[in-house]
C-alpha cells in the first residue's frame, strides 16, 4: 500500500502546480527543505510533529500565492498601469454602443410590427447583451495586454498637454447663430413643402396638409420661442436648469403638436408617387423611421440642455 502523502507533500504539490516545469524540481526541493527546517526548529522547542507541521504550513499561507511570489506571476486582472485606460475606454464604448443598440433594435422591431411591450423588452435585452459583450471583450484585451506587457494605444509619459480640452459651454455667439439659422431653414422647408412641394411638376406636399393652418402656426410659434431661448442662453452666457426645463417643454410641445395633428406624412404623398399596394407599405415604413428620428432628436435635445446646465452649474 502506498504511503499516504503528508501535509507537506500536498502543500509542495499544490505550490508547484503553477510553477514552470524547468524550475519545478529545484523549487520543490528547496521548499521541502525549508519546511522541514522550520518543523524541526518547532519540534526542538517542544511541539509535537504534526502540530508543528500544521503551524509552519499555516504560516506559509496559500500555496498558489507563495508560488506567485516565486514566479512573479500577477495576482490582479488589470493593474495600475492599465486600469485608467481600461476604465476610460469602457465608459466611452458603453456610451456609444448601448444607445445605438437600443435605437437600432427598437427601430427594427417597430418596422417588423412588434407590440410596444415586445419592443421595449427586446431593446432592454439587447442593451444588456451588448453591455456584457463590451465589458467582457474590452476587459479581455486589457488582461492580455497586462500579461504580455504591450504598451497601450497612447504610450509615453503624461504631460499637461494631455489635459482634456475645456468643455464648450454651449452658450457662445456661434451656438446662438447656428440655432436660429437652423430654425429659419426648418420653417422655410415647412412653408415650401406646404405651398410649393418638393416633387417637380407636381402639386404634392410631404407633410400632411391637415397641419395647415393651426398646426403649422403652432409649430412656427414654438420655433420662435426656441429662437428666444437660444438668445436667452447667449445673453446669460450659460445654460441654467430653468432654461433646460424650458427647452425640454418646448421639445415635447413640438412632438405633441405633430402627434395631435394626425399622420405627419400626407397619406396622398406616396400613393401619388408609387402605384399599387406598395405605397401603403412604403408609407408605413417611412412614418416609423420618421418618428424614430423625431424621438431621437427630441431625447437628444432634452438631454443636451440638462447636460450643459449641469456642466455650467459646476
Amino acid at each position: 500500500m502506498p504511503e499516504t502523502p503528508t501535509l507537506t507533500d500536498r502543500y509542495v504539490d499544490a505550490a508547484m502546480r503553477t510553477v514552470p516545469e524547468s524550475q519545478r524540481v529545484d523549487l520543490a526541493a528547496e521548499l521541502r527543505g525549508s519546511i522541514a527546517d522550520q518543523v524541526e526548529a518547532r519540534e526542538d522547542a517542544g511541539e509535537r510533529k504534526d502540530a508543528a507541521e500544521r503551524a509552519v504550513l499555516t504560516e506559509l499561507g496559500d500555496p498558489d500565492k507563495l508560488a506567485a511570489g516565486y514566479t512573479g506571476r500577477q495576482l490582479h486582472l488589470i493593474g495600475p498601469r492599465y486600469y485608467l485606460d481600461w476604465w476610460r475606454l469602457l465608459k466611452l464604448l458603453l456610451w456609444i454602443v448601448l444607445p445605438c443598440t437600443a435605437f437600432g433594435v427598437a427601430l427594427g422591431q417597430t418596422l417588423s410590427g412588434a407590440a410596444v411591450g415586445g419592443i421595449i423588452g427586446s431593446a432592454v435585452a439587447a442593451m444588456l447583451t451588448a453591455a456584457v459583450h463590451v465589458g467582457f471583450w474590452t476587459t479581455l484585451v486589457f488582461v492580455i495586454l497586462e500579461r504580455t506587457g504591450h504598451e497601450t494605444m497612447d504610450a509615453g509619459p503624461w504631460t499637461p498637454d494631455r489635459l482634456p480640452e475645456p468643455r464648450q459651454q454651449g452658450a457662445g455667439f456661434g451656438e446662438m447663430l447656428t440655432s436660429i439659422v437652423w430654425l429659419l431653414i426648418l420653417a422655410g422647408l415647412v412653408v415650401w413643402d406646404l405651398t410649393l412641394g418638393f416633387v417637380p411638376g407636381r402639386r404634392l406636399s410631404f407633410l400632411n396638409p391637415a397641419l395647415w393652418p393651426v398646426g403649422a402656426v403652432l409649430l412656427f410659434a414654438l420655433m420662435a420661442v426656441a429662437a428666444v431661448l437660444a438668445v436667452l442662453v447667449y445673453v446669460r452666457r450659460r445654460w441654467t436648469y430653468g432654461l433646460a426645463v424650458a427647452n425640454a417643454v418646448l421639445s415635447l410641445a413640438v412632438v405633441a403638436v405633430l402627434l395631435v395633428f394626425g399622420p405627419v406624412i400626407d397619406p396622398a404623398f406616396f400613393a401619388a408617387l408609387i402605384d399599387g399596394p406598395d405605397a401603403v407599405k412604403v408609407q408605413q415604413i417611412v412614418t416609423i423611421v420618421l418618428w424614430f428620428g423625431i424621438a431621437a432628436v427630441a431625447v437628444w435635445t432634452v438631454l443636451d440642455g440638462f447636460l450643459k446646465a449641469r456642466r455650467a452649474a459646476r
Partner: protein
Amino acid sequence: MSDDEILDTHLQELRRGTVVLACLRLLARPGYGYGLLEELAARGFATDANTLYPLLRRLEKQGHLTSEWNTDEARPRKFYRTSATGHTLARSLTAEFRSIADAIAALPEED
C-alpha cells in the same frame, strides 16, 4: 482599518527595502533559507518565510545572488551567496540608507 493595522502597514512599508539590504550583506557568507530567516530575526529584521523565499529567488534571477546545492549533509540545502553585482547594490543601498537616516536626524525635533 483599526489604528494598529494602519501602524502595521506604515511600519511594513518602511521596513520593506531593508530586508533586501540585510540579505545582501549577510549572504557575503553563504547561507540557506531557514538559516537566513533565523539570522535576520536575531538581528532585528523580522521577516516571514513566505516573503523571504520569493525574495531570494528574485535577487538570484537579477544576478545579485548566486546559488549552489550543498548535499554534504543529511538534508540537501540550497546555499545563496552575494555576487559581485550584489555587493555593488548593497553598497549603494547602504549609502542611501545612511543619507536617509541623516536626513531624518536633521528633521525638526518633535515638541
